[in-house]
């Protein structure tokens, strides 16, 4: 039993709560992952249910090589081949992921426009610097105009990018010039965000696009519309409204919950409402109300990407990542869990019913039966936030006892936006990526890896994340992180400068110590993967490491991925020229052709390609091998000895 339990998480507090849930008869995702077997045909992309003649299952023959005859038989009722079916399934995942990120971005753009027009009290333009930056990106006139006038134009243009029908997304122009040319040449430069997503749904309908290469190309185009479009815009507009992240100290893990206080967990993805809850929870009337109910105060914490958003801007602690959401409720100390969109398990409600926790849904797009619904109204956001905080406070006296909050929390430093990295490396007078590039060229830093993505109940919680990241930094690879990987790294104590000395290789540790940064830089939520794209572009533009992202000694990974968003992110990393390794499972192995196209042919086409390796150490070594390959191509693979020439040596040189 003890051994079985050990297989579920590397985190002690998580294990304690899994055990508590089991004792109290509470069913969690960890139990369901054991009792539900993943469908072996669907999981490799060999099942199609796109019409009423199916579902059609076209599995590879078991235990033997596929013969040409077998292959001919692997078709759906409509004649779709296993390749078409696998490619259709894969790009529908991209459509789902791109839609999620981009609809998040659209929500921000709508609020942004309202703020500019004065229709959203409580919100304001907090970061004029970023406003001007985005105005320059979108070609908005600055002059002597007020911030709100500039913002109104930005909001209108940003919203227009979603429904644009022709041309290409304006923000693609932020990419390296060579990359932009490549996208145009390949015909994958996205026209409008919604258009590319809709086109995937059309092409994957029965009887439309039946060439797997053509389908996968549309997947690339749509993923680019996510990374360089919808996600990038979400990040930029959030920065303008709430501030561009700068280094901030926070804490992480379930131990951030406080037994004597009203615990409110904000879970989900969008920072629009959570920003208001942060404000309201500090209001003296709310604190007074909490005290009147016997609590010492109000303790806010975050979960998943909302957590990353409010951590990066306010230092609000993080209670956990995706697989810890039910367990937070199992502590018995959570008075309300406020949710918006994405990665919220429906079972938080059933777990909550075993305790006193109130699940409060807030988005009209995401309802859960049994939950309390307080719809977020951007025109009166403070009112929605007050109603939510009050509901939590009033629920405090309903606690049922048997509370257990694990004694585990770690410090972390987050807030490494591209702008902040640039500033930290060069200072106010000459902000620059030069020190990073120089240290890559001189070999102190071997390369840079973006390690991101979810948790997956099919693997041990956080194990692959931490094993991979430790292996990378040990080998002098600087890690940029977002999403649930960032939370895992925080919980493992990797997001503090001291971690460099303890876990990083000598070269990376030296650089971290000099600049005063951790070896793993927390860049934000999953839409903030766009920050990694911009950081990579700045590295290219600074010079000395090639002309394109695909020349850089960099790699990407999502070792515990599970969501469609992760597939979209992975695909836009690949399409931007990054070698990207996923763990856990791979959704196209039912077709060798489709898998080869993603794992091999894409490198020729895009300079980046996919790889699959569930073992995190082996995956880290694949990334390091790729980084070394790029270092060799750049001619920086050999450490060059620096010789100081004295006068005699110089004279000798002159004589030659």
């Amino acid at each position, binding site marked *: 039993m003890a051994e079985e339990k050990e297989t579920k998480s590397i985190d002690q507090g998580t294990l304690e709560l899994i055990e508590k849930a089991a004792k109290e008869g509470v069913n969690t995702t960890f139990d369901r992952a054991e009792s539900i077997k993943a469908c072996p045909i669907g999981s490799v992309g060999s099942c199609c249910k796109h019409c009423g003649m199916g579902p059609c299952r076209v599995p590879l023959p078991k235990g033997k090589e596929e013969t040409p005859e077998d292959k001919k038989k692997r078709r759906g009722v409509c004649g779709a081949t296993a390749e078409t079916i696998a490619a259709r399934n894969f790009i529908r995942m991209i459509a789902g992921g791109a839609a999620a990120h981009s609809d998040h971005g659209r929500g921000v753009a709508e609020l942004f426009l309202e703020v500019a027009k004065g229709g959203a009290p409580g919100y304001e333009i907090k*970061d*004029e*610097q970023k406003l*001007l*930056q985005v105005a*320059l*990106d979108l070609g908005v006139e*600055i002059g002597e105009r007020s911030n709100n006038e500039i913002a109104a134009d930005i909001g209108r243009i940003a919203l227009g990018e979603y429904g644009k029908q022709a041309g290409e997304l304006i923000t693609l122009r*932020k990419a*390296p*010039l*060579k990359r932009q040319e490549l996208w145009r040449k390949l015909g994958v430069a996205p026209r409008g965000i919604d258009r590319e997503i809709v086109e995937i749904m059309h092409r994957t309908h029965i009887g439309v696009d039946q060439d797997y290469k053509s389908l996968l190309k549309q997947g690339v185009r749509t993923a680019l519309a996510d990374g360089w479009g919808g996600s990038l815009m979400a990040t930029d507009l959030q920065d303008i409204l709430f*501030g*561009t992240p*700068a*280094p*901030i*100290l926070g804490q992480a893990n379930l131990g951030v919950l406080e037994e004597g206080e009203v615990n409110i967990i904000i879970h989900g993805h969008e920072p629009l409402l959570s920003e208001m809850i942060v404000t309201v929870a500090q209001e003296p009337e709310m604190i007074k109300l909490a005290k009147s109910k016997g609590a010492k105060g109000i303790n806010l914490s975050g979960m998943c990407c909302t957590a990353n958003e409010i951590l990066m801007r306010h230092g609000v602690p993080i209670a956990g990542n995706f697989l810890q959401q039910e367990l937070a409720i199992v502590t018995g100390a959570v008075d309300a869990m406020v949710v918006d969109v994405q990665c919220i398990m429906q079972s938080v409600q059933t777990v909550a019913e075993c305790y006193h926790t109130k699940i409060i849904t807030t988005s009209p797009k995401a309802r859960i039966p049994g939950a309390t619904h307080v719809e977020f109204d951007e025109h009166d956001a403070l009112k929605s936030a007050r109603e939510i905080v009050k509901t939590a406070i009033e629920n405090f006296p309903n606690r049922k006892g048997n509370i257990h909050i694990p004694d585990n929390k770690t410090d972390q430093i987050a*807030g490494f936006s591209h*702008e*902040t990295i*640039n*500033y930290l490396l*060069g*200072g*106010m*007078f*000459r*902000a*620059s*990526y030069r020190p990073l590039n120089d240290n890559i060229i001189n070999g102190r830093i071997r390369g840079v890896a973006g390690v991101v993505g979810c948790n997956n109940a099919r693997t041990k919680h956080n194990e692959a994340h931490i094993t991979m990241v430790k292996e990378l930094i040990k080998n002098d690879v600087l890690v940029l992180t977002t999403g649930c990987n960032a939370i895992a790294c925080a919980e493992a104590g990797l997001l503090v400068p001291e971690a460099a000395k303890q876990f990083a290789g000598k070269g990376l540790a030296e650089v971290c110590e000099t600049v005063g940064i951790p070896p793993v830089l927390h860049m934000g939520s999953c839409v903030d993967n766009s920050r990694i794209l911009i950081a990579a*572009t*700045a590295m*290219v*533009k*600074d*010079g*000395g*490491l*090639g*002309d394109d992202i695909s020349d850089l000694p960099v790699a990407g990974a999502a070792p515990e991925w599970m969501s469609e968003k992760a597939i979209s992110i992975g695909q836009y990393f690949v399409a931007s020229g990054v070698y990207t390794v996923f763990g856990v499972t791979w959704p196209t192995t039912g077709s060798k052709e489709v898998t080869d196209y993603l794992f091999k042919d894409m490198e020729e086409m895009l300079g980046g390609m996919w790889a699959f390796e569930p073992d995190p150490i082996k995956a880290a070594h694949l990334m390091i091998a790729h980084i070394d390959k790029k270092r060799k191509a750049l001619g920086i693979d050999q450490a060059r000895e620096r010789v100081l020439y004295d006068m005699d040596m110089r004279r000798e040189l002159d004589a030659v």
Partner: protein
Amino acid sequence: MEYKIKKTKAPGRDEVELLGATFEEGKPEGEDMGKWRQKLDSREERLKYLENGERYFYSQEWFGSEKRKNPA
């Protein structure tokens, strides 16, 4: 952002102005910790910072590694 200027005598010249330290002394604490962007306090300064600090994207003259071949 205020520049610290020091006046000093230079050999063969009269008084010259020297730019003092451009880093901040001490360790920022509390609210200010890490909040570097607040140091820029006018639109002009912010735009200047973008052109210089974020020159990769916003300078007319700077194209970094791309300068050699394809000025945008």
